[in-house]
Each structure stands twice: as C-alpha cells, then as structure tokens.
C-alpha cells in the first residue's frame, strides 16, 4: 500500500470519528482524571486497599489523622469530585511575601510607586480591604492557615518545618494527610485546571509544594506545566568597604561574614542591587512563567477546553534578601526615607519579645544594639524599591490577562502573607484606656466605620515624580478597634505594662 493511500485512510478515519462526535484522545486529561479518581478516595477500606494492592495499583497516600475544624464549616466536607459549572470563572491568586499595606492609591501612601497596583485598585470590580489581617506573623504558619482556611491553633503549625499534610510534626516518614483540601486542591477537585508557581506554600512544605494533590499536570496543547520552583537568588558577597562603614549592600563591616546575625543570606539593609534584566530576577522569571501559563490556558480554551483555570503565583520580594534592580531603588531618593516615627522598642518589653530570625535585616532594628538611623533609612528605601519591583512584575501579569481577554472572566485576589516591621517599635506604653493604632500604617485616624480615608490632599493615579515625605498621620484621638488589648502586646500595651514573660523567656 502506498504512502498516499495510508494518509488518505487516516484522513477518512479521522473524518468518521469527527462526524461520530468522538472527542480526540486527551492523554493529559485522562491521566488527571485517573489521578483525581485516585486522590478523590482518600478513605479506602481495608478490603479495597487489599484488592488494589493485589491488582498492582499504585495507591494514594492514606490519611493518618482526621481533622475536624469549625473553620471549615462552610464546606460540605469531602465532596465528590465534580465538573466545574458552565459559567465558572477563572481565578488568579497572587501572594506577595512580606508585603505591608503600604501602597500608593489603595492604601494611601502617596510616596510609594505602585502604578500597577494603583490601576488594579481602580479597575472595575476591585475591592480593597483596609483591615485585613494574617493569622500569624510568620510565613509558613500563615500560608498553611490561609491555604486551608484553618486557624493555626487548629493545625498546630507554628514553624517553617511543618505543614498541613503532616499536621504539626517534623516527620517525613509518614504518609501525608489527604483529608485536608487547600485552595488549589479544592478547585482541582471541582473541575479546574490548576497551576502554581513561586512561594504559595512555604517552599516545599508540603513536600514538592503539594504535588500531586494541588496542581494539574498541564494543558492540552501547552503540554506539561511544571510548578515554578526556581531557587531564589541569593545575594553574592558584597564588595569590601572601609572598616566600620556600611558597605555597598549595607552589611556591617565588623560583623561576621554572613551578616550581623551570621545568616549567609543576610546582606543587610541595602540588599543587593544589581543591574541586570528582569528575567534574571526571581520575580521576573515568575512573571514570565505566569504569563506563559495564562497563554497556554487561553490557547486551550480557543481549541475547545471547557475547564476554567486557577493559577496561583507567589512573588518573593519584598522578602529578604532584597535583590532588586537599580532602577527601582532610583525611584526613592534617600531624602524620602525618613526614620520611623517610633523607632524605639517599647519600654519594658522583654528582650525575648524580639526575635532576629533568619532574615537578618530585622536584627538591624533589634533591641540588642542601638538603632542606626542611617541603616533604618537604608532598609526602608530598599524595601520600597522591592515593593515597586514586585508591582512592576505583577503589572506585567495583569496586563497579559487583559491582552488575552481573560480579564472579564477572571477573579484576581492579591494579598500579602503577613506584615513587616521596618524599624517601628511602636509607641511606648502610654497612660490611656487602650492602645493606639500603628502610627505609620493605619489607613485612617479612626479605623471605625468611617468613610474612605483621604491619603493625600492631591492624589494622583500615577506615581509622583518627586515623592513627598512619608505621611505621618496624627495619633488616633479615638479608642482603637480593640478595646481590650492583651496585656503583653508589645508596643501597644496598657498604661501599666505587666510583662509576664513567656515560657521561652524564662529559660
């Protein structure tokens, strides 16, 4: 039989299959359905398990512990896997590491340069929440919490070594708990194509960023889409400087080679400012990955893919090390980085209330050594530059969403994982009925049911070419939203602080 005849027969067979309404084979989808079927039955009975083992099937990890959590009351428990509704919307979830509510238009800090997030805040259907709070001020516990909608008290996760698949233990030799459904896992079970990249969970907690529970394998036409899990760029060694000076990257000359806390990632308040293209920065590469994934999802939809997508992108900056491009630092002249209003630590606060942590920069604000205004200003300036850099990369992603005409059918959620100190110790305990809100971050003098704060007398939708100094709202004349503060609340304590030392301080 000639080659022409073979081709003709194939064409005829394909035409018959098309006329009969058969769908083309989709190996990725088939595999995912098999996976979902497998993961969707976390509770195999012993008989089922034995039968599956006899058949030579690779079994899904079985749950080792039941979790009953009131915070999941809105969910029907372990629902069966379902197809997404016909009119289901896409979801783009953007998590930014260590981002303070310190943006230009959205949060009223006019000296910040955040044009992309300004445009996002102004776009139709966007709501900015001025009083949003993380459950805990630590990356991994916070991420475990919001990704599962469970309080840290419920998960018992308070450090970076545990995750919800292992329920507060450091053991890795046990099977992961498959009874908890984090956000992407839930969307995947409900018929979504789900992709993720960057710091969504704490890196590799859960193991492999919760592959295969949370993420789909790929798109029909785009092929396999791997979780973006590049190594975050560590700053190289800073250039030398005269003894006792602040070196080019803000590292103290007289301290240990790794930095003032001995952490090898610590390069100090100046970060490591480099002149190199965007795609060489972690967040630049993540933005590119997100754009490629959006395009792959769009391409599939053009060729008949019915499933909506859920894409999560976790940007690393402004988390340390502050590896950022020079042009973003240049946006903030040194004169604009005025020192924090309350640079001193609250009087009477126990030393153990402040933990340097591994990031190092925090130690430069520590209570163990005098605060240096020069360092403080340098820290704030570099942090602001990182915020502007992240704003730029997020802007690229949001712009692509518009170019692909996906904007009108996509929910976009953007948030930080917890707050960040930039040298503010908080006011000392003052004689008053209650605490006062943060002097530099509070959106309005009175965070009660007040109308929108006016952050700037003449706000502009565009970044200010000559930024004004940091706004310094007047202290709140009204009681704070929390009428009964915890007596040990550092920096915002009652008139007579009664510091009862936590357990860690007693040893």
């Amino acid at each position, binding site marked *: 039989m000639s080659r022409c005849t073979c081709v003709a027969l194939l064409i005829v067979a394909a035409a018959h299959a098309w006329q009969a309404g058969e769908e083309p084979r989709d190996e990725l989808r088939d595999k995912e359905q098999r996976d979902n079927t497998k993961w969707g039955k976390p509770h195999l009975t012993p008989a089922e398990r034995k039968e599956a083992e006899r058949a030579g099937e690779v079994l899904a990890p079985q749950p080792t512990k039941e979790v009953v959590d009131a915070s999941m009351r809105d969910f029907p428990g372990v629902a069966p896997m379902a197809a997404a509704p016909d*009119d289901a919307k896409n979801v783009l979830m953007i998590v930014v590491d260590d981002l*303070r509510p310190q943006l230009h238009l959205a949060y009223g800090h006019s000296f910040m340069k955040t044009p992309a997030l300004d445009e996002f805040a102004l776009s139709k259907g966007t709501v*900015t929440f001025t009083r949003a*709070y993380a459950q805990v001020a630590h990356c991994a516990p916070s991420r475990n919490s919001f990704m599962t909608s469970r309080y840290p008290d419920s998960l018992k996760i308070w450090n970076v070594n545990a995750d919800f698949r292992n329920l507060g233990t450091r053991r890795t030799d046990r099977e992961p708990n498959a009874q908890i459904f984090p956000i992407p896992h839930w969307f995947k079970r409900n018929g979504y194509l789900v992709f993720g990249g960057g710091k969504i969970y704490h890196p590799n907690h859960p193991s492999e960023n919760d592959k295969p529970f949370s993420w789909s394998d790929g798109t029909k036409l785009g092929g396999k889409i791997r979780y973006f899990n590049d190594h975050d760029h560590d700053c190289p060694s800073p250039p030398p400087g005269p003894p006792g000076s602040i070196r080019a990257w803000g590292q103290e000359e007289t301290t240990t080679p790794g930095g003032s806390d001995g952490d090898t990632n610590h390069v100090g308040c100046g970060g490591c400012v480099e002149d190199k293209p965007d795609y060489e920065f972690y967040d630049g590469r993540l933005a590119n990955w997100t754009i490629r994934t959006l395009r792959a999802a769009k391409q599939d939809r053009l060729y008949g893919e019915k499933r909506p997508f859920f894409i999560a992108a976790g940007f690393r900056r402004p988390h340390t090390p502050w590896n950022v491009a020079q042009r973003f630092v240049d946006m903030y002249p040194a004169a604009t980085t005025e020192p924090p209003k309350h640079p001193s630590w609250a009087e009477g606060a126990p030393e153990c209330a402040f933990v340097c942590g591994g990031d190092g920069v925090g130690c430069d604000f520590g209570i163990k050594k005098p605060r240096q205004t020069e360092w403080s200003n340098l820290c704030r300036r570099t942090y602001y530059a990182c915020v502007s850099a992240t704003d730029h990369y997020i802007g690229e992603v949001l712009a692509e969403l518009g170019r692909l005409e996906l904007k009108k059918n996509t929910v976009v959620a953007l948030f930080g994982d917890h707050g960040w100190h930039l040298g503010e110790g908080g006011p000392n305990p003052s004689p008053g009925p209650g605490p006062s809100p943060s002097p530099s971050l509070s959106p309005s003098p009175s965070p009660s049911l007040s109308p929108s704060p006016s952050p700037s007398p003449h706000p502009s939708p565009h970044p200010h070419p000559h930024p004004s100094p940091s706004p310094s709202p007047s202290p709140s004349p009204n009681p704070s939203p929390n009428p009964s503060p915890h007596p040990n609340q550092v920096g915002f304590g009652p008139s007579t602080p009664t510091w009862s030392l936590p357990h860690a301080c007693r040893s």
Partner: protein
Amino acid sequence: MELATRVPLMIRAPWLTDGQTQHLLDRMRGEKFGQNVSGTHNNASATAADRVIRSHTFVELVDIYPTLVRLRTLATHP
C-alpha cells in the same frame, strides 16, 4: 499587632456591579456591613483615591478561601 499582621488584600471580580460587590461584601461575614464601604468606580468627579472601593470590614486571610469559592459561583447563585 498592626505592623506584624496587617496585610494588603484586594479582590477583583469584574463582572460584578457595584450592587453585587456590596452584596458580596455583606455575605463575606454573613452580616450587613453596608455603611462600612466607601468609594465608587463610577464617580468621575471624585479623586483617584476616592474612586478606590474600600471595605473597612475586619477580615482575616482565612476568609480568602471561602470567598474565592463563593465568587466563582456567585453568578449562578446570587
């Protein structure tokens, strides 16, 4: 507390009208918080900052999960 735990949070659902946005905000906590929202996208005479719709409702990051789930079904179950 404010410095350590307060975070930015912005959610966009472009197909929602201002009224539906209000409805969503009300539903988020299962209560009425109508007076706790300011700003409108449609007020052309307002300054840029005033055109940002802000909710001063107290929310936690654990609210994001159920909100995303509800947002995707809001069109079918208003």
